[in-house]
């Protein structure tokens, strides 16, 4: 009885209930929303957001925020795309198609690390630093690509295949990758020491160094992971959409990801948030995105709905926790 109650009281249960109610409501108007086919559509909408949301979640749990992930996604996808485009001949050795994956992850990690270094070395607020690097990285994407798009024809078909071919059950690889990342994030956050230290830092930043936690290093790690995951999302963007555009790729992505994370019950006050909640938040967002065109709601209302959902999630977070206020000023310590 108590166990059941404690499960029901968790944030994740609330989101799950919201997803079910939402799907049933949409299904009442459009029965085809409740089909397996639709599930496939929803799942295919979410992998990039889910992967980046895992990184963003860690950042927010550590009481920071990363607004630059959309630009990191764009930049690392562009670097990999250029690798394919010019198909550099390494002494007669063909560049295998998968090279872009580790390359993109590494590039993303470096950009994330730069964010972390700026934040930690100069004691700056993450929000402003990443607002700056959002612009900076996007500009760099234009510069390295000479403002040219990487067309579909350059992207290796094996890479594009990740979003289409399936190892099992007709579910494309990309979805397995996304859930694999979520699983790794779960293990990392719940079963490694440093994972728990991230929660500790977010939970009480002033106490963390007193307890021997290397706040600087852990924060750098968190931003590096966030960047690396944005990089992974970048190469998967190329896989999913078959092109990399210096202007469109990843633009506005950060808002979707932050929305998903906040809806998933990750507290902006730090220290609170679960992988399960974030996954559910991503799925809820995916359901909404898939349902709008089905219901014939014009795409122009989508942004307003996202905005409203973020605000409502904030208010819920506030009412659930009713704890101290951590504004910008508290983070400064």
């Amino acid at each position, binding site marked *: 009885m108590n166990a059941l109650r404690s499960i029901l009281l968790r944030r994740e249960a609330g989101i799950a209930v919201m997803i079910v109610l939402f799907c049933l409501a949409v299904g009442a108007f459009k029965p085809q929303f409740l089909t397996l086919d639709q599930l496939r559509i929803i799942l295919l909408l979410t992998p990039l957001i889910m992967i980046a949301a895992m990184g963003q979640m860690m950042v927010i749990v550590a009481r920071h925020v990363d607004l630059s992930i959309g630009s990191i996604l764009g930049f690392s996808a562009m670097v990999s795309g250029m690798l394919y485009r010019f198909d550099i001949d390494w002494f007669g050795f063909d560049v295998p198609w998968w090279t872009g994956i580790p390359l993109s992850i590494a590039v993303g990690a470096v950009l994330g690390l730069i964010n972390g270094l700026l934040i930690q070395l100069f004691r700056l607020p993450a929000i402003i630093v990443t607002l700056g690097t959002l612009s900076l990285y996007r500009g760099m994407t234009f510069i390295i690509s000479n403002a040219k798009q990487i067309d579909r024809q350059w992207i290796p078909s094996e890479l594009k295949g990740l979003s289409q071919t399936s190892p099992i059950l007709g579910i494309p690889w990309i979805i397995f990758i996304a859930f694999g990342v979520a699983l790794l994030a779960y293990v990392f956050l719940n079963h490694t020491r440093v994972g728990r230290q991230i929660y500790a830092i977010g939970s009480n930043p002033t106490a963390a160094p007193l307890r021997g936690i290397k706040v600087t290093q852990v924060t750098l790690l968190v931003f590096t992971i966030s960047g690396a995951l944005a990089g992974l999302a970048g190469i998967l963007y190329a896989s999913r959409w078959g092109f990399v555009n210096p202007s469109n790729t990843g633009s506005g992505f950060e*808002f979707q990801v932050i929305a998903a994370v906040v809806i998933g019950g990750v507290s902006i006050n730090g220290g609170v948030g679960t992988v399960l909640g974030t996954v559910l938040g991503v799925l809820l967002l995916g359901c909404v995105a898939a349902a709008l065109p089905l219901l014939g709601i014009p795409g122009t209302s989508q*942004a307003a709905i996202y905005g409203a959902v973020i605000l409502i999630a904030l208010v819920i977070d506030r009412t659930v926790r009713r704890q101290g206020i951590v504004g910008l000023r508290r983070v400064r310590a």
Partner: protein
Amino acid sequence: MSTLETPAPTSGHDAAPARPRWQVVLVRPETMTLILLILGIFAGGLLSPFFLDISYILRSFTLYSEFAMVALVLTMVIIAGEIDLSPAANMALSACIFAWLQQAGVPIPAAVAVGLASGLAMGALNAFMVIGLQLPSIIVTIGTLTLYRGLAQVIAGDKSIRVPEWFIGIDKIMVAGIPLPVVLFVVVALVLGIVLGGTIFGRQIYQVGTSEVAARHAGIRAARIKLVLFLLVGLVAATAGIMTASRLGSVRYDLGLGGELQMVLMAMLGGTYIFGGRGTILGTFLAAWLLVIVSTGMIVANVLPAVQLVVLGALLIVSIIATNFIYSRTQR
């Protein structure tokens, strides 16, 4: 700090020596802004022979004058220890409401009034979430920025709404050879400069931003001050939105898209301290000109717009690092 002085044998020092007057006046972020501004003018002149033309610079400034006006108020919000990322979206929504109403036949003055009122209402929503619900303003206004622009899109769709011919062209009205939006910006800067520097309201903004707890204990109504500031940002943003409508002759939901970065950049470049309590209208005033000089200098030299993105992003980061450094050195 004062370790160089001989340690007093029994009691501590009563006070550190005062800084020399020239230091107080010169070693401050605004000086950095001014120097950058002068360098920017020279660099612009070097980049392109077409740059050094005062009427061109003034005309270019009209393109940024709406953002610059809002940035002045935003400066006060940041000094008070909060932030508002939603005014650019607010500009779009209030302009859309205004344009939509006048298109539906509402007389222009009434439509303007409703547009301004909607700006106030948006400021009030921000204020409610931040002050009433005690949520961090940075996240709240990221949410409202998405919401406001989304609502603008709901109202206007993807189409642009025309405004009547006679309403068009605020930037073509010249006051002593200077475009009206620039004049308005200067006037707003003067007024806000006086308010921030000379009135008790301005003084209390600094005090709230320095320490809200201490301000409350001193009987300063921090919540009320922040409410006024959020409302003021809303009102000025709506004004800026309607000014933009007059300049462009039409309104679309993407009006002022990305303007929040420019506004924050102006405040930061002007030496406003991101954690509150420090900053001046003069700094933001200079920074607005700096930004216009840098942007138009690059555009007129046909520099790749990507370079501009890089320069803007780098400027933002460098300016907060420099500001923090100057403050940490000069004020203990």
